[in-house]
């Protein structure tokens, strides 16, 4: 009897899928949910799940696993998801060193990878792939905008530091691409480092007139708190990763007035963004960060492609993804030929709204910015 039901259900399924685009899409999300970088992964996941819930599309199936910011673990999970769970789309990775370990082999096995955060330069240029889409940014982008801002702010000698991993190198490369002043010194710290006393002493001794730092998650919190106590009073700036919503709450007043760059901000004025910010606060009881917005956009991109094509028809699905026919919370959004976004990068300032520290846009840093590596991509 059971067999009969199963067979008839199967038959039913076949007829339906032949008629409409009801083939379910199985998404595997590998993201960081424990350890020092967990705030970022939780935000990406929550943003993604919120979009899935708002769309109410029963054909989108998501499985989530924690990579604990360990490349070897991420590779294991990816293999399991591709071979055992048979996922169609992978997403979720926060850190570029993990993305470099997972993405090339995943897309090589015919799975789509949509990056909601990491955008290492390797994958934007020579290493680009037809199944790899970046929905967030190429790593250099936000830092490039800050390099431009440093010029207009009149800084002549900036001390720059970032963690020693692919995104950290991209960050400082990006900053220097647009910055015209001198670099007082360039430092790479350990990924996950929590004590910056030695680096702050270097900053003090360097005679710099400003500090640019890229330290996401707990690293940024530790740096800002220690910097505020050090007696060094030259201005700091950075990408949004160093001043996202999760960091501001833990750093407190020390971050007030700091300029940072982002492709998203909660005060971008468009209906999609307003709905997102409201729904996120209602669902989770906190303000969204840029990571949450990236997760939200990634889910909406997948949903938009599902409307147009069957995921089993890889060419059609790829073309549908490439159209990027969804309302991004960033406003204008389209893919360049290397399947990385072309978008505006804003400069924001940390302000106080009531009791809550948050960011407010004060200008556009780079308009319709693509990535510097697009020419190296053969797509």
């Amino acid at each position, binding site marked *: 009897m059971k067999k009969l039901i199963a067979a008839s259900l199967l038959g039913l399924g076949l007829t339906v899928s032949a008629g409409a685009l009801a083939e379910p899409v199985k998404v595997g999300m590998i993201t960081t949910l*424990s*350890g020092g970088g967990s*705030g970022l992964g939780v935000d990406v996941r929550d943003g993604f799940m919120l979009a899935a819930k708002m769309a109410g599309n029963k054909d989108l199936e998501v499985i989530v696993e924690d990579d604990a910011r360990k490349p070897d673990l991420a590779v294991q999970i990816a293999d399991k998801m591709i071979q055992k769970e048979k996922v169609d789309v992978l997403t979720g990775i926060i850190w570029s060193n993990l993305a470099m370990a997972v993405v090339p082999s995943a897309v090589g096995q015919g799975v789509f990878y949509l990056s909601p955060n990491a955008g290492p330069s390797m994958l934007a240029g020579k290493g680009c792939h037809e199944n790899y889409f970046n929905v967030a940014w190429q790593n250099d982008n936000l830092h490039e905008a800050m390099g431009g801002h440093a010029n207009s702010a009149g800084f002549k000698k900036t001390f720059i530091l970032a963690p*020693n991993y692919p995104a950290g190198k991209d960050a400082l490369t990006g900053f220097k691409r647009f910055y015209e002043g001198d670099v007082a010194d360039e430092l*790479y710290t350990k990924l996950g480092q929590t004590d910056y*006393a030695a680096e702050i002493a270097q900053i003090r001794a360097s005679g710099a007139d400003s500090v640019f730092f890229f330290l996401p998650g707990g690293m940024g*919190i530790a740096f800002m708190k220690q910097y505020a*106590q050090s007696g060094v009073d030259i201005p700091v700036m950075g990408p949004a990763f160093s001043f996202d919503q999760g960091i501001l709450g833990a750093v407190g007043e020390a971050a007030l007035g700091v300029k940072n760059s982002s492709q998203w901000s909660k005060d971008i004025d468009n209906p999609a963004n307003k709905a997102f910010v409201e729904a996120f606060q209602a669902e989770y009881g906190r303000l969204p960060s840029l990571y949450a917005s990236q997760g939200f956009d990634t889910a909406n991109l997948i949903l938009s492609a599902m409307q147009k094509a069957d995921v089993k028809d890889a060419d059609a699905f790829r073309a549908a993804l490439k159209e990027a026919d969804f309302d991004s919370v960033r406003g204008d959004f389209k893919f360049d030929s290397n399947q990385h976004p072309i978008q505006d990068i804003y400069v924001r300032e940390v302000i106080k709204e009531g009791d809550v520290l948050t960011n407010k846009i004060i200008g556009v840093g780079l308009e319709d910015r693509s990535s510097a590596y697009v020419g190296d991509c053969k797509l």
Partner: protein
Amino acid sequence: MTLALFIEQLLNGIQFGVMLFLMAAGLTLVFGVMGLINLAHGSLYMIGAFLCATVALATGSFWLGLVASLAGAAAAGAIVEIVVIRRLYDRDHLDQVLATFALILIFSEGTRWVFGSFPLYLDIPAALQGAVSLPGGAQYPLYRLSIIVVGVLIAFGLYLLISRTRLGMRIRAGESDREMIGALGVDIRTLYTVVFALGAALAGLAGALVGAIQSVQVGMGEPVLILAFVVIVIGGIGSIKGALIGAILVGVVDTLGRILLPNFFELFMGPSQATSVGSALASMAIYILMAIILAVKPQGLFAAGSQ
């Protein structure tokens, strides 16, 4: 590099070492006296930081938070010892590692469940804000100086406790011969609970002190735990003196390595290459130090039996 900068970096190294000492002291006592490998020591550090942040937020006083972190971590340590650890003394080290690793997962998930995944806010008290001028013109954060002072006082206190008090005598006796001290009528179960709670309180204190200048979040204890293990292996397992010297050594080598190595490589290669080679080597420095020390003195600098 000027002398003032060097002194400042040396102080940074010592401050980092002193923090490690607070972690390592408890770890080495527990290992030395009870022969137990406690991986959950980092969780007690995290508990200290979270308690301090919560109480400081509720009452507005960092000092109350500090008291809460000491008391709370000691209580958590005592409970863990009575409920779980007590059953592990006669077991294999592998069983101990497994059980205390399970404790890490329980504490981490429990903390996440109560406080969420996002870092908590904890600021240093108003009295310790800002920087002071050192002789030679360097500026140094007052709070970090205070940490050094607290660490030195605690090291001295532990020395007095172990060498001058009855409790210390029992701890030393427990280290050399567990069965004999039990046979002499010392209540070894209570002694173990007290030692474990003492180690937990020190870890909790370290967590609270560090939480104020770093981020208070789930998983903050494990990176420190690894360093604390390096410290006790270098210092010699079971030795408080070894823990102190090992901790300072690790702190100074790590801090100065981070600064000096990139500068050193800049002498014969381009700046960006020098930074990446130097940084990579700097993160290995303490493990290289450990390997060298173990090659020369396999028991560590001050192994418990030889002091």
